[in-house]
């Protein structure tokens, strides 16, 4: 189906069933993550049809806006509630991702689900995405990043292909002096900021 783009976009879509006479029809709003507008609309109707008695034929989209990133420079922990169809049934999941944006986290989620569970995007439904405070995160992969003095080496560094040396006599060395250390010095900073600040 979809999702081959670099990053998904977040759309807020508002739609309602068509009003026959002057009767007031309920209006429904959904947040859809999709690669483009058209897919977003399609998914909107897909979900709405499942939840309410509306079909695209009998309905109209009132508004579709692309939601922009609220704080693209703040690192956040996202908790994503997913429902997906595996080969033998449907399951709920709670997954956590660390990213700078909601769309980034959701994109990670889709890629991750595909990798770990062979779940195709059409069988994944994002139920909810929320920013989670560092203290409330559950997954150890995420929790291990909550270290203000985080340090790790980058061993076996394969640098991007250098056009100069496509054929070399000896194997290039992957031992490059790279050790990631974040904020080792505490002198200037008296107070440690709480990790995972909510927006």
């Amino acid at each position, binding site marked *: 189906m979809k999702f081959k783009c670099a990053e998904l976009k977040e759309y807020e879509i508002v739609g309602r069933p068509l009003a026959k006479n002057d009767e007031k029809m309920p209006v429904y709003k959904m947040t859809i993550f999709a690669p483009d507008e058209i897919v977003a609309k399609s998914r909107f109707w897909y979900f709405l049809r499942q939840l309410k008695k509306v079909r695209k034929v009998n309905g109209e989209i009132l508004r579709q806006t692309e939601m922009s990133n609220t704080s693209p420079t703040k690192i956040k922990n996202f908790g994503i509630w997913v429902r997906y169809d595996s080969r033998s049934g449907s399951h709920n999941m709670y997954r956590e991702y660390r990213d*700078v944006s909601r769309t980034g986290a959701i994109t990670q989620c889709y890629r991750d689900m595909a990798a770990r569970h062979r779940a195709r995007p059409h069988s994944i439904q994002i139920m909810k995405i929320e920013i989670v405070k560092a203290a409330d995160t559950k997954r150890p*992969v995420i929790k291990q*990043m909550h270290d203000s003095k985080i340090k790790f080496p980058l061993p076996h560094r394969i*640098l991007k292909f250098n056009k100069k040396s496509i054929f070399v006599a000896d194997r290039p060395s992957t031992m490059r002096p790279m050790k990631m250390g*974040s904020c080792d010095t505490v002198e200037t*900073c008296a*107070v440690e900021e709480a990790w995972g600040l909510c927006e």
Partner: protein
Amino acid sequence: AVVSTQSTGAHGDDKGKLVAIVDVIDQNRALVDGPCSGVGRKDINFKALHLTPFTIPIAHSARSGAVRKAWEKAEVTKKWSESTWAKKLASREKRSQLSDFDRFKLMKAKQARNRIINIEFGKLRNAARKAKK
């Protein structure tokens, strides 16, 4: 936080710029900011970074203003441009920008230098030969 240069052209126009690692997003990405080198705060893969030996004392996820202050106080740009690494990059850059006339001049300059060296070498060699005899 560690200062590093951005190496490759995923973010093509930011290639080779100095940037401070402000925070770590996950195993592959860092939050990076270069207020003094014109790089906006963004997330970037470690693969696109080369660590330099310079560090600046900032808290993790410090804001751009704080990063700038610490950067300027530590005089990172100055120290960087004085480092051999930066000089090598600069000379590499210069070499690639040479015009044909520049290359000609370079050839002549090298020739002149090598002549001086070889004359001296010749003198030493003759002296050694004489000493042997």
